[in-house]
């Protein structure tokens, strides 16, 4: 059953590490955008019922509760198996949480990134570790039991000690789901750009090197496993049975529909996207024009490897699919990067850390 992704690219501030098409836009555009989103939703002819809904951003927790209700009311399938709201810690009230729950939200993903104050502040975020624990408690009290905590390994100033502290505090939150990303350095984020240019802003000089970042990640893998929250995907960890149903669709190549700007869709065969900027999106929707862009047929032979292998369960080692890559797989296995157990092909622990090197082998 398909999932629905709703993109809300607006934020109260742009975080230094963020390399997405989201950020701070004029207030009027935000309202126009919500209007366009409702308009587009109204045009969807639901020949299927969404299994999952995911509000991603940006900071979709900024969507006013009545508007959110309006958006969710247009989609069939309430109560959904999983309806996730991404949220920046620091703005969640009991009323808001209750409104979310009533509208159908049953999972919240908190962009915590770090639980050490100076690190949080350097990214441009305003929350504190206390706020995070209060809000997690509050969500649970209002009946939203499923909470994900996002963390980033490799933030400026992070050390083995500070990372351990973040993980200690994470443990105290008893999460049933966590995401741990390693900082991506590219020219699309302010911090990444500063690092590439050799500058000093945003703590660029204090970013841990690759080796340390990799070490932090592995520490997190071990610590989370010990908490009973093992890794099920390169960046995702869950208490068994609490994996994100929506996110699994991406890796398992199940269909999803993306709405809003910079949203991505897959119908099992074709992939397409919507315009990158909210302004462009609003314009197209108002004109009644299609928002479908860059529609192309997915290459299953490639994707089953570079998506499927991200999962801890790996992919079925069916002879038909594996045979064409026999030589590559042998080489990767000999290098200790992949392994086959119980008829599943999986990345090894080291393979996970250099997974791009593995995936490239399957890109034509």
């Amino acid at each position, binding site marked *: 059953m398909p999932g629905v992704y709703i993109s809300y690219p607006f934020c109260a501030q742009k975080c230094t590490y963020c390399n997405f098409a989201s950020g701070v836009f004029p207030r009027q555009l935000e309202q126009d955008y919500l209007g366009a989103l409702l308009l587009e939703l109204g045009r969807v002819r639901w020949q299927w019922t969404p299994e999952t809904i995911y509000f991603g951003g940006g900071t979709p927790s900024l969507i006013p509760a009545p508007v959110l209700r309006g958006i969710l009311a247009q989609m069939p399938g309430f109560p959904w198996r999983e309806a996730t709201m991404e949220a920046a810690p620091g703005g969640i009230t009991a009323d808001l949480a209750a409104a979310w729950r009533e509208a159908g939200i049953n999972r919240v993903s908190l962009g915590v990134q770090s639980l050490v104050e100076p690190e949080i502040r350097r990214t441009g975020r305003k929350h504190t570790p206390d706020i995070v624990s209060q809000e997690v408690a509050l969500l649970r009290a209002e009946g939203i039991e499923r909470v994900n905590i996002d963390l980033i390994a490799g933030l400026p100033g992070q050390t083995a000690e500070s990372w351990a502290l973040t993980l200690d505090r994470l443990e105290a939150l008893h999460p049933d789901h966590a995401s741990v*990303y390693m900082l991506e350095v590219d020219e699309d984020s302010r911090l990444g750009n500063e690092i590439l240019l050799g500058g000093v802003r945003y703590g660029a000089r204090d970013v841990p090197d690759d080796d340390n970042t990799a070490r932090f990640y592995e520490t997190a893998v071990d610590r989370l496993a010990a908490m009973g929250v093992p890794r099920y995907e390169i*960046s995702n960890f869950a208490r068994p049975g609490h994996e994100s149903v929506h996110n699994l669709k991406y890796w398992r190549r199940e269909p999803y529909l993306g709405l809003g700007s910079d949203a991505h869709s897959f119908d099992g065969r074709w992939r397409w996207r919507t315009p990158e900027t909210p302004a462009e999106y609003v314009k197209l929707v108002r004109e009644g024009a299609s928002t479908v862009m860059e529609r192309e047929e997915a290459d299953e032979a490639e994707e089953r490897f570079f998506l499927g292998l991200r999962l801890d369960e790996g992919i079925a080692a069916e002879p038909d699919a594996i045979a064409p890559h026999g030589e590559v797989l042998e080489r990767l296995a000999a290098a200790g990067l992949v392994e086959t157990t119980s008829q599943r092909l999986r990345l090894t622990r080291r393979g996970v850390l250099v997974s791009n*090197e593995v995936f490239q082998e399957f890109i034509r």
Partner: protein
Amino acid sequence: MDPSHIRNFSIIAHIDHGKSTLADRLLEVTGALSHREMMDQVLDSMDLERERGITIKAHAVRLDYRASDGDMYQLNLIDTPGHVDFTYEVSRSLQACEGALLVVDASQGVEAQTLANTYLALNHNLEILPVINKIDLPSAEPDRIKEQIEQVIGLDASEAVLASAKQGTGIPEILEEIVRKVPPPKGSPDDPLRALIFDSWFDPYRGVIILARVVDGRIRMGQRVRLWSNGRTYEVEGIGYQSPKPIPCQELAAGEVGFLYCNIKTVSDAQIGDTIVDDANPAPEALPGFQEIKPMVFAGLYPVESHEHGLLRDALEKLRLNDSAFNFEPENSAALGFGFRCGFLGLLHLEIVQERLEREFEIDLITTAPGVRYLVTLLNGDVIEVDNPTKFPNPAEIKQIEEPIIDATIITREEYIGEILKLVEEKRGMQKKFEYIGTGRVLINYELPLNEIVLDFYDRLKSASRGYASLDYHMAGHRVSPMVKLDVLVAGEPVDALSIIVHREFAYDRGKGLIERLRRLIPRQMFEVALQAAIGNKVIARETISAIRKNVLAKCYGGDISRKRKLLEKQKEGKRRMKRVGRVEIPQEAFLAVLKVAGDSSD
């Protein structure tokens, strides 16, 4: 025309001292060209020449000039190449003249290149007419420059013409001086034909076009001529002169300069300096001074994309049609695949060929470190020439190695002389002369190994002198030196394209610098990679590139699979452009690292 009314001259000038502007003025004043035609006509030459402000090919332009004595004169301006790589070509062009204008910038003064070419002209007994140019500049000091010309070159400059080619001052005086002082050509139109080839190029429609100076006799349409050096005969199919547009004519007689073509297929058959004689009635002797042009600097050229090997060969063959000074032969490198070992006159020549290949033929190239040709005497007494490190004989079989030496002249301001002396000493130079020439300027003369010049000498000299140094050199034989072959091993495998020949005393520093640089240029691989510099079996320096620790894509935000795929594709493409040696992917820049390892290893 009667030889008594012919004057053949060239212009000697340092780059930027105003040679082209002066030439343009002479053309304009004699009416060869209107002002408007000047731009597109005169400099009808390679883009490269225009961009770099240097002349690579010679030109010869005939000017008709009515002198103050009322007579018409035929003035032939022979424009020569202006770079040390082309000294031989310059000498042939000068041999075609009886006089030369020595153009010196009124504020800059005499530079090394000017000096060298003036000596070359004096050796050919040319009448030198000093011209002090750019006197319109506020910083002009014509008296000081005159003094300098007298002191440095030993030339009477009392009658030097003061000119500003830009403003047109002094141009009539220069023309009068040429008529009055440059001797008329000596040969007789009635003697058997002898004509000097001083340049040639390939024209796709007519074959090779030769620029020649008729020394004796006449050359006519339809005449059967013979080239002295190779004995081949041809029938003259076209003949004429440039004014500056090509103007066909029936014959060129003793003293005259012009072009001819006779269905020659490749410029290597019409070599610069060769003598054209009549096939039926050959002159008994050739003109003096002919030399086979010998490449001095050698490098491997490899296509980045190995499937472009055939393309590169075709391109080299085409270039060679037009440039007999460089040669190439197929070479096979374990690291770089199939390529060509090429010989060049010098570094500029190498750069020109490289740029033409990339620009005109659109081939991405990897060029290995340029080197020189060594004379290696083996224990069995055989002497072999080695210009390729990979062909270097086993050290156990070598009795001695001789390396080519140059005689270099550098002129600079005295405030930079300290830095420059440090540089030439570092480059194993031997001082032969140190002289103050006029206020604040110093001339030094050094014997230097050519090997040290081809590495990075120009760049270093430029930075040591902030650009205020001029350099000229000529070959000065060989000298026995303790040279060794330095190999680089990547993950235990020797990378042939990174081997260099180096003086034993420099081997350690250079090896260390080189692998330090490589450590920064070769990306981390899936495994630890050892880098070693070795002489024979002895490792003299070692570095390690640790294995990649992470290469992970974190987010797949909102199911954006294409972005992910694009990134993987980009990473894969990056690798595809690297050369794989054993298990290690080496980027192109690494092969250039060899070029920059002198002295300090900093970037």
